[in-house]
């Protein structure tokens, strides 16, 4: 599912206009915009008018100017694209439907048409449309209620309240002392620390869980099946004891399903600290699906990069992230692709190159196969999985990249030699992971750059040597970059 699916077509187009402008330094010609959107002039004009009307909310902090030729975005320093997304999402009827469902658990058509001030037929259309996207979560709205596995329902709401709906709608409740106490109890029971950055995520989840707790006939069939390898898991056991005790203090009946939900959540998202998670990895069953896949994928990655071994702390970090990715893949269906995601991905692809992306695709293929899950073509969970793997691979390559020592050994008159060497150093300074200096004999280098075709190359003690064709030429620079990449892997 995509964030766009909560909006109407023209709204998505308007957002795309903003995006295009941001990507193009704030200005784009009318014609380029037409080409990009592949729409008629009339509809672009409509969009621009509609944007102008909507942006009046921002009191001149944001507006789009069109001078007959160029379209330009003017945006105050304190406004970001996020604010603009928010503006669009805030008036989405579909979001209001989900919100209503969450708050009241159930609606009747008359209630909702009244509340949203829309016609019955348009309400039906919106629900049908929502359902077509909720399908990938395995849930659907029927008879005014959300149906499906409880895990999937809470997981969907978790995404919804984390990324789609304004968090502040839940926040007042979050801050209440009961929530703080619950979080404290959880820390006491599990003997873990919940860091401030993870608290928000956890409190969103707990809030959702609290509002779902009294729903009758919760379904846990799929979850129970998936949990079979985990019934003896020590963390699960602790959670189970905590849940039973917690709810025995109220007149609320719970079964194992409730404990299972929290177990999955705790491992699928960064809630525990890396240290607490590490403690858990020492006692978890290594043959259980997630742990086994973590190990397999970690090895695959290490082999791919031809690393001999990862430093201890880095290895822990990698396992921490892998468990999140794999727990999500193993237990959940569906995901929501946010606006940001595609732009980050596009940028990252430029940086990391196609190889890494292809490798990330390959690993997700392996994971899917090992978990024996059905891979629909347009599955957002898998797409986000690839995205997460890419980020993990990036993280790894940043952390593992050793600093290459490069020496410049130009053979020419001292005056030129000095200036040209300095210019070369300047030119290469943006390249990550290298240290470059003028060559000093008796020092060790990974790469020597020289212009001397005749000198004895063996004098550089096994360092790789590149002979510059033309100092400062782009041809040379490209070659040097290629060599640096080769030396890094």
């Amino acid at each position: 599912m995509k964030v766009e699916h909560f909006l109407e077509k023209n709204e998505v187009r308007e957002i795309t206009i903003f995006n295009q402008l941001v990507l193009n330094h704030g200005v784009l010609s009318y014609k380029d915009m037409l080409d990009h959107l592949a729409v008629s002039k009339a509809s672009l004009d409509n969009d621009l008018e509609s944007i102008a009307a909507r942006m009046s909310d921002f009191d001149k902090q944001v507006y789009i100017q069109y001078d007959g030729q160029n379209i330009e975005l003017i945006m105050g320093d304190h406004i970001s694209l996020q604010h603009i997304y928010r503006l669009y999402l805030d008036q989405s009827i579909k979001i209001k439907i989900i919100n209503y469902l969450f708050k009241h658990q159930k609606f009747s058509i008359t209630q909702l048409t009244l509340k949203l001030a829309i016609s019955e037929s348009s309400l039906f259309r919106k629900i049908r449309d929502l359902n077509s996207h909720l399908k990938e979560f395995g849930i659907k709205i029927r008879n005014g209620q959300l149906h499906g596995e409880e895990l999937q329902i809470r997981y969907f709401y978790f995404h919804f309240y984390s990324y789609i709906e304004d968090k502040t709608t839940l926040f007042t409740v979050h801050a209440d002392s009961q929530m703080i106490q619950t979080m404290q109890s959880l820390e006491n029971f599990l003997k873990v620390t919940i860091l401030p950055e993870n608290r928000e995520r956890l409190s969103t989840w707990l809030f959702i869980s609290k509002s779902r707790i009294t729903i009758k006939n919760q379904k846990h069939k799929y979850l129970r099946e998936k949990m079979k390898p985990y019934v003896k898991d020590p963390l699960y056991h602790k959670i189970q004891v905590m849940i039973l005790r917690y709810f025995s203090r109220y007149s609320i009946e719970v079964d194992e399903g409730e404990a299972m939900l929290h177990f999955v959540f705790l491992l699928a998202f960064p809630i525990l600290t890396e240290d607490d998670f590490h403690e858990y990895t020492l006692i978890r069953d290594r043959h259980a699906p997630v742990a086994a896949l973590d190990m397999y994928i970690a090895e695959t990655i290490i082999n791919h990069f031809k690393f001999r071994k990862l430093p201890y702390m880095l290895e822990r970090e990698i396992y921490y992230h892998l468990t999140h990715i794999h727990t999500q893949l193993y237990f959940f269906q569906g995901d929501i692709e946010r606006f940001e995601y595609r732009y980050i991905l596009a940028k990252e692809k430029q940086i990391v190159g196609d190889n890494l992306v292809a490798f990330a695709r390959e690993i997700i293929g392996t994971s899917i196969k090992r978990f024996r899950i059905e891979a629909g073509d347009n599955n957002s969970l898998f797409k986000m999985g690839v995205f997460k793997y890419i980020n993990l691979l990036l993280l790894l390559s940043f952390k593992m990249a050793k600093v290459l020592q490069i020496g410049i050994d130009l053979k020419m008159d001292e005056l030129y030699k000095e200036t040209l060497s300095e210019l070369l150093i300047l030119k290469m300074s943006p390249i990550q992971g290298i240290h470059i200096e003028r060559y000093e004999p008796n020092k060790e280098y990974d790469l020597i750059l020289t212009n001397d075709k005749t000198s004895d190359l063996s004098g550089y003690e096994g360092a790789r040597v590149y002979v510059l064709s033309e100092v400062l030429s782009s041809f040379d620079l490209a070659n040097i970059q290629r060599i640096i990449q080769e030396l890094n892997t």
Partner: protein
Amino acid sequence: MKVVIIGASFAGIAAALEVRKHHTDANIVLLEKQATLAYIPNGLHLYWGNQIDDLNAARFITEEQLRQHTIEYYLGATVQNINTDQKIIAYDYLEQEELVAYDKLIIAAGSRQLSEKIDGSAQDSVLKYKRYGEAQAALSKVKESQHVTIIGGGQVGVEAADLLTKQQKKITLIESMDYVLFKYLDEDMIQPLEQKMIENGIDLRLGQTVSSIDMESNHNLTVRLGDDSVISDAVIMSVNVRPNLPFLDTRIKRHTDQTIAVDRYLRTSVEDVFAVGDCIQLSGPDEDMVYIPLINNAVRTGIVAAANLIEPVLEFKGSLRTIGTSIFGYYIASTGMTEAESLFTNHTIETHRQKVPLTSLPHSDTVILKWVYDATTHVLLGAQMISKANMLEKINTLALAIQTKQTLEDLQQTDYFFHPSYSQMMTTTNLVSWMGERVDKDES
């Protein structure tokens, strides 16, 4: 003034009698769904334990007593809905719908033993016996059964297991927590009891949750838990009780757990409407709101609501969840916070577990006592006891100590009698390190 009370059990009757005390001229009406009055919920246990020889004798008050206090009561009257705008209550009585107006309303409709998670638990063949009619049915069903499965290892479940074992029944007891009586005792206190249960042949299934109960063609019942199942002649539900309030109007606010929200004076969100007993949460051992369905709480809340009818004068003091029972040859009592429960609070606690002789005689019985107290202030927060001798009354002393916020040091200064046949050099309800034998090691 017309005071209508819904439910004539402990809470409702206590409220009615107390209203009469405060308002001699009030018109008091009790509406009770059941056909008979004031049955004691564990009457069946009294019967099984040969303490009464007729189930009907398990009554805590008579109709005559109500009449003496000029309390109007209707048995077999089921409230269908209440309208707090117009202050009118609709109820079914003798197959007619009746209306009654009120000036003050007290909701004392209590709780039921019911499960929404266990499929098939609502069928009649799955025994519950809080009410007289249910108890009669359970009595005859159990009589003809050999193998009885009990779902829930709380006080009711363990008592039933004990009593039925004495009748040579085969008992399977299922509890979802790792040990029985977990609300009242810490795991380190339960060992002797569980040992005894196993010696008595109880098939104890701990850490397992029942998912469904099916009736087989031969009238046996199959209880399913995880991948396992138990087949027996009868099944007793002794799971937590829950309020059942379909008649409430939406103006009366409820908590997430469906209990009625009340303030310290037991007033609901609607003026002139009060709620008491098993249908509300109370402030518990740590003064946070919890659900503690016990008779003592029902009675006390009934009394407090009655006192506050005209204006708020008396605050409810909260509950320490004090219990006492005798099971499998052990007397067991608990009050206040357990160590496990302290994890839900902000207290840093210390505990001390010790085995103490009860008298000064050579072969004195002993009691194992666990103290839970605040690590810095030494204020007593909770106490647990297990013994082969009947020391149950002592828990009330400790409950009072907790309620009045005594420290361990205060307790050493309490005045008590000494008689070698009945007491020790120091009273048992005193934590004195040199008196008994320490049986825990978790404190340096």
